[in-house]
Structures are given as C-alpha cells and as structure tokens.
C-alpha cells in the first residue's frame, strides 16, 4: 500500500520552507510531501511551528523561503481564498461556523447556490439542503441540514465543518486539532470522518496533540520541533514513546 502511494504524484510538496517574523525564525528548511488518500499526522509542542506551517499551506502567510508545489505545479497564495480555489481546505480549530445559521447554510457559506429570477439571484434553499444532506450521508453523520448549528453536538459541528471541505472536491484537507474539545464518542465519529475522506482519495493532514488519535488514523507522522522537521516516519515504524521523545526533544531526530 505504501509502495503504490509512493509511485503516485504527491498532491502537496514543500521544499525548504522557512518563515521569519522579524527576528524570530518560526520555520526553517521544512521539506515534506503528502500523497492522495494519505493521512499524515503533524505533531509538535506549542511553538514548534505546526500552526505556522499550516497557515503557510492555507495561504494565510507567505513563506520567507522555499517552494510549495500543489499537484505538481508551483503555487503562491496571497489569501486563503486562493488556496481554497485550487483545492486546499482547512478545518479550523474553532470550526469557523456561524451558530445562528443552519447546517446547510454553514456548509455553503460564501459559496451559496443561487437561482436566477430575472434580474434577481435568489438562494436555492432546496438544492443546498439536498446537497448538504448528501454530504452528511457520505460522512455518515446524523445531521439535519435545516437544524441550527447552535443546537448541535461537537461531533455534528465537526461534520458540518468537514462537509464544507467536500463541496469543492478538495484534494488536501488540513484539520487543526479536530479532537481537542469533544467527547470520546464524538472523537470516534471524527476519526470515522477522516477515514471517509481517505476512502475518497483526499489527502488529510491531521494536526493534533492527541497521540491515540494520530496512531489510530494516520499513515505517517511528521514531528516538528523548534521550527524544524525532526521526523517523518510511517506510523508502523514508530511508537507513541518515540514520538513523545521527539516532541519533547529527549530524542533529537529520527
């Protein structure tokens, strides 16, 4: 399985990515690649450079050095919308949901489906609800498109945020701490959602502090420390103990 993935073209390829904020070097010489249908865990302590790396890939920051290649071609983003346009979606830690809107409205936020009535373009509520229901079905989440997000459980909210990434047939989904603030049963649901994405050939980057989750779903784990990549290993060649040692610095690199 690893062999067949290696022969495919990586969906995301970073070479020598570095980022400085004034005198602070947040990232230095990061190389990595992610293949279609691969789930990569990105781990590291606070301040290790995970968020900076994710923000660079998502188009929030421009890298100071290095090159990003997406599906083979070099890309540069000036805004997050640019990254989204070519198929990079981010599920933010706080999920970026508007509580006062329905699930379907949130899924389609900023990308509403419309029907033209003469000079007016009115929202196509039916089509959006139907498509949202379809997406929740694919994710096997019991979520009604017409329910308000403020009445939903943590797992349902995750499903709404993830369904949003499925709208545009994203090829890379980055998830920032999706399991940080939810219950055990809901963690199971979210990990299930990640499996669904993988089945559909989507590359997933999981940014997480929770070791069991990373070992449950990831094919590969990347460990960051002090702005550098310290390890990049298939999950079955490493162990939670080794990853912990790499994160804390007890072990320099692997």
């Amino acid at each position: 399985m690893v062999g067949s993935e290696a022969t495919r073209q990586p969906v995301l390829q970073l070479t020598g990515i570095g980022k400085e904020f004034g005198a602070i070097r947040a990232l230095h010489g990061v190389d990595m690649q992610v293949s279609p249908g691969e789930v990569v865990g990105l781990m590291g302590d606070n301040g290790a450079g995970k968020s900076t790396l994710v923000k660079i890939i998502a188009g929030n920051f421009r890298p100071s050095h290095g090159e990003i290649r997406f599906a083979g071609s070099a890309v540069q983003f000036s805004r997050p919308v640019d990254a989204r346009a070519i198929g990079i979606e981010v599920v933010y830690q706080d999920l970026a949901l508007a509580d006062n809107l329905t699930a379907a409205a949130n899924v389609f936020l900023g990308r509403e489906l419309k029907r033209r009535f003469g000079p007016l373009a009115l929202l196509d509520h039916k089509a959006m609800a139907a498509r949202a229901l379809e997406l929740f079905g694919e994710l096997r989440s019991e979520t009604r498109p017409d329910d308000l997000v403020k009445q939903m459980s943590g797992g349902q909210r995750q499903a709404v945020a993830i369904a949003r990434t499925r709208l545009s047939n994203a090829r890379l989904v980055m998830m920032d701490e999706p399991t940080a603030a939810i219950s055990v049963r809901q963690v199971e649901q979210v990990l299930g959602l990640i499996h669904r994405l993988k089945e559909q050939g989507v590359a997933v980057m999981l940014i997480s502090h929770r070791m069991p989750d990373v070992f449950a779903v990831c094919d590969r784990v990347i460990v960051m420390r002090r702005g550098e990549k310290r390890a990049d290993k298939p999950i079955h060649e490493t162990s939670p103990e080794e990853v912990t040692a790499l994160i804390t610095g007890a072990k320099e690199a692997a």
Partner: protein
Amino acid sequence: MAMPMESPISFTNIGKAKWWQRGIFASQTGYVLIALAVLLVIMHFASPYFFTEGNMQNVAKNFSFIAIATLGVTFVIITGGIDLSVGSMMCFSAMITSMVMTELSTPGSYGASLFVHMAADGKTVLANVPGLILLVSVAAGLGVALIAGLVNGFCIAVLGLSPFVTTLGMLSIVRGLGYVVSNGRGSFPGGPDADYFYALTSGDVLGLPVPFIYLVVLALAMAVVLHHTSFGRHVFALGGNEKAAELTGIPVVRVKIEVYVICALAAGLQGIIISGWLGSAPANMATSYELNVIAAAVIGGANLAGGIGGPLGAIVGCVLLEVIRNGLVLAQVSSYWQQTLVGVIIILAVLVDRVRSRMI
C-alpha cells in the same frame, strides 16, 4: 455519488425539534407579537376609541414614522453593529431636501432657472417639468445620507473603529452640519412641487397612510433580501461569527459598508417623510430618535450581540411602542409615564428571551 432521493441518513439519535421550538415560535419576535395581540385586546376593552378608524390610521401613521429607520438599523444590528446616528441623519436629510427644494423653486437663485419660470402674471412660480424639483431634492437628501453611511462604513469596516464610537461621532457631526447649513433655523418644503411632496409623504391611499405603504413594501423587500439572497446570508453570518465569515471568503468589508449605507438611507428617507408630515424640517427634529429606533428593534427581537433580527420584529417593536403611547394617551395617563414604561418593556422583552433560552 448518486444518492437515492430519500434521506441517506437514519436519524436514530437526533430528534427533530418540535414545531413550537422552531422558527418564529421560538423567537423573541414571536412572543412579543403575542404580547402585542394581548395588549390590543386589553386596549379594546379599556377604551372605546382605540379601535376606531381614525385612531387606527393615527397609530399606523405614527409607527411608520420610526419603522422605516428601524428596518435600516436592524440590518446593522444583525451584523453585530450599532448605528447611533439615525436620529441626526433623519433631520439632516429632511433639511437638505427641503432646502434644495426651496432653493430650486426660487427664481433668481442658483440653478433655479433650469427648474422654474415665472408665470405671465409675474407672481406665480411654475415648474418647468412638474415633479423634477421633488426628484432632485429628495435625491439630494438621500445623497447626503449615502455619504454619511459610506463614511460610517469606511471607518468601521476599513479602519476598524468601534461602531458605537464612530456612529456616536457621526450623530454629533451630522446634527452639527444641520445647524451649520440652516443657521439653526428650520426649513420648509416650498415651491411648485410642495403639493406633490406633501401628497407623497403624508397623504392617504385608499384610507392607508402613505408612510405605512412604504413601510410594508420596504419590509417585504427586506425579508426577501435577508432570507433569499447571499447578501442577506452574509449579513447573518457576519453577526453570528465574523471570523468564520472572513475565513469562508465572505467580503466582510463590503457587506459592513453596505449595511451602514442601507441604514443611513433608511434614516434619510424616514426623515424626509417625517418632514412632510410636520410641514417643516426644524434643526432639532428627531433628536434622540435613535434611542426609540434601537429600542423598537431590540423589543422586536433583534439581538445587539448580532446574528438575529428581521423586518417583522422591527415592525412589531415599533407597533408595540406606538400602541403603548397611544393607549396611555387614551387612558388619560400622564404622558410622562411613557418613557418609563418603554424602558421597562425593553428590559422585560430581553428578560423573557433570556429565561426562555435557559429553559431549552
């Protein structure tokens, strides 16, 4: 990925909210509407004059005088902002409209020759094109509102100033400008088009006051915009979670500027209509109306924290305020009690909403 038409999901754990826990029944607007109905019944028994045609027309006219501005401010409140400059804006727009109208109708003054000429008797002023003066002067009144709205929106959305402070400043700026251009004197809509002006602002059509008709049309338009266009969706999203709105690619700056412009235009239109009813635009017109307007919006269910509100709520709030005012007069209660009671109702309406959302 073809899915069967029936639901692809079985909802074993997720129940459906009961009908009375959804939509309008679960909203503050819903039970303020019920409170209003109860109040109307009480009024009917308390005063035989309440449900007479004349009094109803009066009530309809009076609440229409703040309701259009309330629709505008509701847009702003839904995005989580506030606009305190509506009262001053009403006055300034009305003033500019009547001043432009008078100026253009005075032969010999700047630009007037394009619009009016003297009749053969040398006394009567006749319009070159009937209605043109009215059109230009109303456009001028709304034009200044547009500019003030753009400045509000620019300061809030682009410069990132707080809506409260920006519009508090604008309240003072616009009121001050009103005194500057008028030298503190009121102005009167005059000239050959004044009759049209009065007909269009304080006339009746089939027994309905004209302002009420404008209100209904604008409220329906607002309902469509809020619930059936992506602009409306974005207005709600902005109030619900501004950061999410930005991350999902909503043009946050543009939407914010647009809501402040809509609010200023609504206030301007409202002011022009009020001046038609008053027959003049005094420099102290609509002073502190912003408080009535915001109170009406809040009583009707608009949430100052953002994300909730609508045209029905705005109107219900205005009607409730007006019925109470009217009722106190009919019941011969000292009108000084009115403000106190309005304050109590604002707090009660919000309190009931608080209690209800705790119960669910």
